[in-house]
């Protein structure tokens, strides 16, 4: 894929929104005005897109979770395909609390509901067993308590539960390490959550968006599906590259380690 200004123009990425609805923070990225709409300076777009590509590749190289967010129905398919090719993740509708309330919002993904944690009524020094229940199992309060106390095998997970040792069964809930937002205008909340959690955000910023809330803005037209697809593909390819490089390096390292072990035991 060649990233040239002509390619971007062909994808209508230079077309901004109406002059009246501009965000003044986009001034550096605006080339001018024509027929009542602002035209985005694609030289900036290319530079910032390449920066975003670099960031994506590096995050993928380091094993981070990359999340493509695209809420508009027209770009649902673009988002999902980008995530699939990138070995990354997608969100076609942002649920508030995905980052800041992840234990609850992502309980179905994790298989653990923190609000249904059962605690036995015994004093804490005797047994502090908290039996985590996966959402597919159907255990009553008494059954869980008795099962926890007697140290039975948990039917859902097959793990043998210790009755005496205190546990913290809340499993780890992942956060994205990079957010790629393909329609910033609809996902200001996602950007807010990411900023709260210090997660970098790449976003396609149109002339009515505020690029200052985003760490790697890409000034471009967010209404054109072909344009968004182009950018999403570029970022998706970068992410794929990064994860492939990581896989290679991990394989090399594994080989080296194996060789080192072999030589050690010779």
């Amino acid at each position: 894929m060649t990233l040239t200004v002509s390619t971007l123009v062909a994808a209508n990425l230079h077309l901004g929104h109406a002059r009246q609805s501009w965000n003044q923070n986009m001034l550096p990225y605006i080339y001018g005005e024509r027929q009542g709409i602002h035209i985005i300076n694609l030289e900036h777009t290319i530079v910032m897109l390449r920066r975003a590509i670099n960031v994506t590749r590096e995050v993928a190289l380091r094993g981070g979770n990359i999340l493509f967010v695209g809420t508009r129905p027209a770009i649902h398919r673009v988002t999902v395909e980008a995530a699939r090719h990138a070995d990354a993740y997608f969100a076609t509708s942002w649920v508030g609390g995905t980052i800041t309330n992840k234990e609850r919002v992502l309980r179905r993904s994790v298989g653990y509901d923190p609000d249904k944690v059962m605690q036995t009524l015994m004093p804490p020094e005797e047994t502090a067993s908290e039996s985590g229940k996966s959402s597919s199992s159907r255990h009553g309060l008494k059954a869980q308590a008795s099962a926890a106390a007697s140290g039975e095998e948990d039917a859902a997970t097959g793990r043998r539960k210790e009755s005496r040792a205190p546990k913290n069964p809340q499993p780890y809930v992942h956060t994205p390490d990079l957010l790629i937002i393909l329609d910033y205008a609809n996902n200001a909340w996602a950007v807010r959550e990411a900023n709260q959690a210090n997660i970098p955000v790449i976003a396609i910023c149109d002339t009515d968006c505020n690029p200052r809330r985003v760490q790697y803005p890409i000034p471009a037209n967010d209404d054109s599906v072909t344009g968004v697809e182009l950018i999403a593909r570029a970022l998706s390819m970068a992410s794929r590259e990064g994860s492939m490089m990581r896989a290679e390096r991990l394989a090399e390292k594994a080989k080296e380690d194996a060789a080192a072990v072999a030589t050690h035991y010779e």
Partner: protein
Amino acid sequence: MQRALATAAATASARRPCLHSSLLRLAPLPTALLRPAHVRTYAFPSSSSSASSSSSTFRPNPAYDDILANPHPAPRPDSLAYFTGNPRYFAAVASLNALIRKHRLNFRDTEQYAHVQHKPKWMTMDEMAEYLEFRLVKGTYEELVHKLNVLFAAQAMDGAIATTLQTFVKPGATLVTPSRPTASLDEFGRSYSYGSRKTAKAQAWIIAGTGQVYVNGVHMSEHFAQAEDLEAILRPLVLAGGVAKYNVWALVRGGGQSGQAAAVAVAVARGLCVHEPPLAPIFKDEGLVVIDTRQVERKKTGQPGARKKNTWYVDDAADVKNKHYLLAALCSYAIASYLSGSSVKLLTRDGFATGRTSHHTFYIIIATTHSAQTEFRPVCKAQAFLSLQFD
């Protein structure tokens, strides 16, 4: 913009990156030259900088130096839809969409599966939430069911469709609904059918014959006295053109004459549909095969019938009018008798149409000259009470 690019490319130096380069060979960006003025960037020190740098220089955490270490304490999530909070739903929808796209099905309208007779019983919203662990709202559920129906209608295209759809079938039901047992002729060529009307229940056996219709052991003309009842029973046969082609043996219990006749008529129509299936839509349009479910409505307490009400409550306007007429009649009678010479004297309270209270009671005081007694008779509501005292 294009000319600027051309000149830039012509004078490319080691510092300025070529905008046509591929992704893999990107030179470090001279951000100082190209970044907008308001964007702050941090200066990452090169590896040659001394370890004892001043506190104003930013140094990334050395914990991140190991690129191959896992940044999270758990392995990466498997599902693409991990961060949606609804991973199984999205995985399912992705598989359905893939099938729809693969076979290029037009899923825009519901006409796709309007022809399908027996759609399988899909899971309800709550069942999907419980068994498949979907988080659904009504609109999403309806769209999902629409896609399932579209794929079910196009089942013949691909065997994989059936396996995919199986997961959405209601627990206890199957994808291929067993067809309802259709009625057929028995070993003797008879059809059995049933009909009812009000309290009459009828069974009919129809066999090819000469046109004899027997009800409860006797010919129908003996059983039914009214011509209307006979016509009702014969109507389906007439429409089918089979009056002389079939024999009917009917048993009917309950109800009265016309109820039994209508019950037998429905049974005959249904039996004829078994003999000649093409008649079914014709009879359905005529309404001959549908049982009339109307039953006698029960009587309610405080009323003389099911709907009829008692007449305690007379309409005010009519009541007043009645009272006017009544009072006028009484007064004119009293006046006439007085004028004709009888000894009746009319004494009313204030005049012609007065003496009427707001509760529609009024008093006619008629007294005789010879009697000091006055009779007060309250006239209330619909009742009229006249007392005349004569000498």
